[in-house]
């Protein structure tokens, strides 16, 4: 199905590359904190049709001769076997996947940093495993004095206590398998060491959302709040930016809260003020590449409604608190959208009503096809098969799965459980 493109990916690659290059040229070396998902950013692809999930990788490939990647993973996440929600894999597996994937794309991964290390055994085991990947592993501990005692943070007891990560390229991308992995602390610790070595290093952040140049209540920015409803992130006007430049820009609460401390840390390390607002630290140019704002708004609203349905399921499974769907519902109210705006829901419910069985509906382009649970098929399976028949103009009565094969599957699923362990 072709989705209308509302975002100019080629323009984005061109001007984003230029913007990062400008930032690199301000320093001897730039540490660029990469937020969000480095590979396969489905949220961005859904809210900005035309932004392909691999766009950030294509961007990094533009820098492959002058860039290296440091991956951060929190020792606590390893210890607790934290799982990345979208792929159902652990953070450490995601690190290994990232190393292999990036190397496959010709991007140099120089090291892995295990942050907040406090002797956890699983973290040590993971470091052993990384030897097979021929990547240098470093351990960083909790930064003494963080977050308020700047004198201690910027001293040999604070960032100075961490080992220096050997880097050789002009652009050092600091990324991670998920949030709360210690990317910022790693970048700042490196800055501290670089300055002690006489290198004029800089820091910048690459965040996709919120889009600073879109209005505060733009559906794309609200969709970011919906996506982070579990963290309770809120978008706010960057008052530092407004005061300094008279320009209204959007940032999220945690970056605004930490900015004064961050600014002070950067001043202590570098001896000068480079940034006057959290927005200044960013490099993203997404807002300039939107070609159809109306369509983007619609895509973002649709995403928020989907997030609401998913949050209700998570709540039922005990995977989130009641606040998560409540927050998303409030955001929907702000935008004047409701769960009934999702057309396929209406069709699925109508089918269920008519058939008195669990049902589903799919919308492909403008066509909507529904299906119900049968004796052999789940509602989703039946619906997809119906859709494929319609799209390929195959009469409804044709059996796509031969009865012989179906019988084999059926047998394997309904075989008496005596073949399984009885205890």
């Amino acid at each position: 199905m072709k989705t209308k493109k509302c975002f100019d990916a080629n323009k984005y690659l061109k001007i984003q590359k230029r913007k990062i290059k400008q930032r690199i040229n301000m320093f001897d070396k730039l540490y660029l904190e990469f937020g969000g998902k480095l590979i396969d950013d489905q949220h961005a692809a859904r809210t900005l049709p035309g932004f392909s999930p691999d766009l950030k990788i294509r961007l990094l490939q533009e820098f492959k001769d002058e860039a290296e990647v440091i991956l951060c993973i929190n020792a606590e996440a390893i210890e607790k076997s934290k799982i990345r929600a979208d792929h159902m894999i652990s953070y450490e597996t995601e690190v290994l996947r990232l190393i292999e994937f990036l190397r496959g794309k010709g991007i140099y991964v120089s090291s892995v940093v295990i942050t907040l290390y406090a002797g956890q055994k699983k973290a040590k085991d993971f470091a052993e495993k990384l030897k097979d990947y021929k990547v240098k592993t470093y351990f960083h501990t909790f930064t003494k004095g963080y977050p308020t005692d700047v004198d201690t943070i910027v001293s040999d007891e604070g960032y100075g206590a961490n080992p220096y990560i050997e880097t050789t390229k002009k652009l050092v991308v600091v990324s991670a398998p998920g949030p709360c992995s210690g990317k910022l602390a790693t970048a700042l610790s490196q800055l501290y060491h670089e300055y002690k070595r006489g290198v004029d290093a800089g820091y910048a952040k690459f965040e996709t959302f919120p889009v600073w140049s879109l209005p505060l209540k733009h559906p794309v920015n609200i969709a970011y709040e919906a996506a982070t409803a579990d963290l309770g992130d809120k978008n706010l006007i960057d008052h530092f930016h407004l005061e300094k430049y008279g320009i209204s820009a959007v940032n999220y609460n945690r970056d605004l809260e930490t900015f004064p401390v961050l600014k002070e840390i950067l001043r202590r390390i570098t001896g000068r003020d480079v940034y006057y607002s959290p927005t200044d630290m960013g490099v993203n140019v997404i807002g300039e590449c939107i070609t159809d704002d109306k369509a983007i708004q619609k895509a973002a609203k649709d995403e928020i409604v989907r997030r609401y349905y998913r949050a209700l399921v998570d709540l039922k499974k005990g995977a989130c608190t009641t606040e998560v769907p409540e927050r998303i519902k409030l955001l929907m109210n702000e935008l004047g959208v409701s769960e009934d705006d999702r057309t396929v829901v209406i069709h699925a419910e109508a089918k269920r009503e008519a058939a008195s069985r669990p049902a589903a509906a799919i919308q492909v382009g403008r066509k909507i096809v529904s299906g119900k649970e049968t004796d052999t098929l789940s509602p989703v399976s039946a619906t997809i098969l119906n859709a494929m028949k319609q799209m390929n103009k195959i009469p409804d009565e044709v059996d796509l799965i031969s009865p012989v094969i179906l019988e084999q599957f059926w047998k394997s699923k309904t075989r008496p459980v005596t073949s399984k362990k009885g205890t």
Partner: protein
Amino acid sequence: MEIKNKTSNFKERHLKLGEVLIALSICSTTNPIVQKIINNLDKLAGAELHATHMIADEEMVVLANLGINATCGTELNMD
């Protein structure tokens, strides 16, 4: 054991989407119509789907891999 028999058979009899795709792949070796369907599966990318009852995690993963934006209700399928 009786409970296990019952619970093990619980909801197991319906072919889930992953199994349907495997079955289609097997059938496609002898049936050109099914081959055509498999070739056109990528046309479902970007489609919207909603199910009235909770979709199993394994089916959600397959839907995501097909690029389908799926949601579902919170009722459990007790049939």
